[in-house]
């Protein structure tokens, strides 16, 4: 308290009545209510923080899987052993991370934290790419569901119990726990899937370019010949038309248009490859790599 107040002439101003007691600690009728609200907000912020952390790691691991897959040169059910081994360890790490956040993103919280879960898009990209390199087909959402469930299940280890008794929400979590124990699922939204597949086209383009350059053949099924089995050029065309024909979602028109444009470019790069192969494939010296700088940075986040 700073002395006393003065009036216009600088004389000490009289207070009417006794001096009020020293300032109360901020405690009033509203304090309990605000304390409850604070706890709710804290819970939300803490949960969000945990999700973001895990999400960042999952994104990094997914990218590593994609890089590993880019070292493959042909489409084949059987991946090279060293690459398969690397992917397995990365997926195991992803499993653990997914299992820790799975209980946090059940029900209403799935969309609440959707923006903090961009990692799922990246993971879809890795999984679709893996699937493509093995089977030369586009994985469907239905095929992805069991894979995701499997990942989460594998990530749950006995030590997970300790992780779940996180101090932040003892009361709220208690009734839900039995349920979650049985089926903690990390569901993919349609956007996770579609945007993951958008990015897949970029990976396919890169794969087509390197594999064509290094093996001298256009990647494709079976014997890898030019004519009979389907090649990656056709696959790219099909994916391109697939996206062109889909109606644009209202929610994220801008992002959609952007991704579609990148996909168009990828399709054209691959079709150019197909043309080059057809017209002068055999003239090209083995090991010659076309200049890839310039076009493909758009997909990188």
């Amino acid at each position, binding site marked *: *308290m*700073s002395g006393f*107040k003065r009036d216009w002439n600088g004389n000490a101003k009289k*207070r*009417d*009545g006794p001096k*009020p007691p020293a*300032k109360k600690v*901020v*405690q*009033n*009728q*509203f*304090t309990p*209510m*605000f*304390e409850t*609200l*604070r706890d*709710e*907000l*804290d819970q*939300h*912020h803490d949960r969000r923080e945990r999700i973001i952390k895990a999400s960042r790691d999952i994104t990094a691991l997914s990218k590593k899987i994609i890089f590993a897959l880019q070292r493959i040169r042909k489409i084949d059910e059987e991946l090279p052993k060293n690459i398969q081994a690397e992917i397995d360890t990365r997926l195991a790490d992803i499993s653990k991370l997914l299992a820790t956040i799975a209980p946090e993103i*059940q*029900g*209403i*919280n*799935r*969309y*609440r934290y*959707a923006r903090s879960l961009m990692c799922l898009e990246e993971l879809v990209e890795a999984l679709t790419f893996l699937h493509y390199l093995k*089977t*030369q*087909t*586009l994985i*469907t959402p239905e095929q992805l569901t069991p894979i995701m469930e499997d990942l989460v299940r594998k990530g749950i280890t006995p030590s997970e119990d300790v992780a779940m008794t996180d101090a932040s929400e003892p009361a*709220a979590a208690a*009734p*839900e726990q039995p*349920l979650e124990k049985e089926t903690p699922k990390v569901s993919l939204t*349609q956007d996770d899937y*579609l945007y993951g597949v958008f990015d897949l086209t970029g990976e396919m383009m890169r794969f087509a370019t390197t594999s064509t350059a290094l093996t001298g053949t256009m990647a494709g*099924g*079976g014997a890898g010949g030019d004519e009979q*089995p*389907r090649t990656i050029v*056709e*696959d790219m065309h*099909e*994916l391109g038309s*697939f996206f062109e*024909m*889909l*109606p*644009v*979602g*209202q*929610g994220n028109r801008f992002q959609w248009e952007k991704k579609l444009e990148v996909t168009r470019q990828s399709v054209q790069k691959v079709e150019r490859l197909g043309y080059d192969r057809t017209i002068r494939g055999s003239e090209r010296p083995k090991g010659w790599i076309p200049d890839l700088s310039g076009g493909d940075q758009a997909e990188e986040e």
Partner: protein
Amino acid sequence: MPPMIDPSLFDQIKSKIEEDTTVRKELEQIVDELHQHVSFTQGLLSKIHSTPRSKYATLLPQVEEGIKSQVATVGKLSAFASQYPYYKYNHKWTRPLQDSLSTCLLFTWLSTHTLLTPLQLATYYSVPLNLTAQDDAFHITTEEYLLALVSIIDDLSRLAMNSVTLGDTALAVEISAFIRDLHAGFQVLNLKNDILRKRVDSIKYAVKKVEDVVYDLSLRGLIPAAGAEDEKKGE
């Protein structure tokens, strides 16, 4: 050799996108309707700045009518939105809903000098408040309640000034006490760097504005005797 893209996939995804578009359009209609009721009620409420308290008896019932229309629309919204994941579309209505909540909070404070708690407010709107993670349905979120509260603080700080102009110094003093308590309440929160933090930061200006009004009053001995206990202390 299986085809690149499963033939049923396209139709499946296309129909989902179309459904999403339909939902959004429907929501926009309801939200528009809510918006209209809210604007009307806000307009009515803006009359408090020029209406002495003795005339509240005719003004407030009109406001209440406006709020009732809002509540009805929110009911419609709640029924429709609860069919879909809440946070998928929440951004479409959260602003008008906040505005609606603040008209209701302001109305109750003006009529009874009480603050509706989140639970009372949710009850007034007949919508749920806190949901466990398992029920995904329409409700009023903590953030929405708090943001609505911030905006009535703004409004009341303006009213404190105007009430003095209208000769009702007692009201200014009452508002001052209320805002000071709310300000203390907001300081209990741990805020992150988000919209709520930004809005809450503005409360201090409202506090200052009202304290200044009360200071002016006390300086001139215009504080009515009944509320005089609460005289402003210079800090």
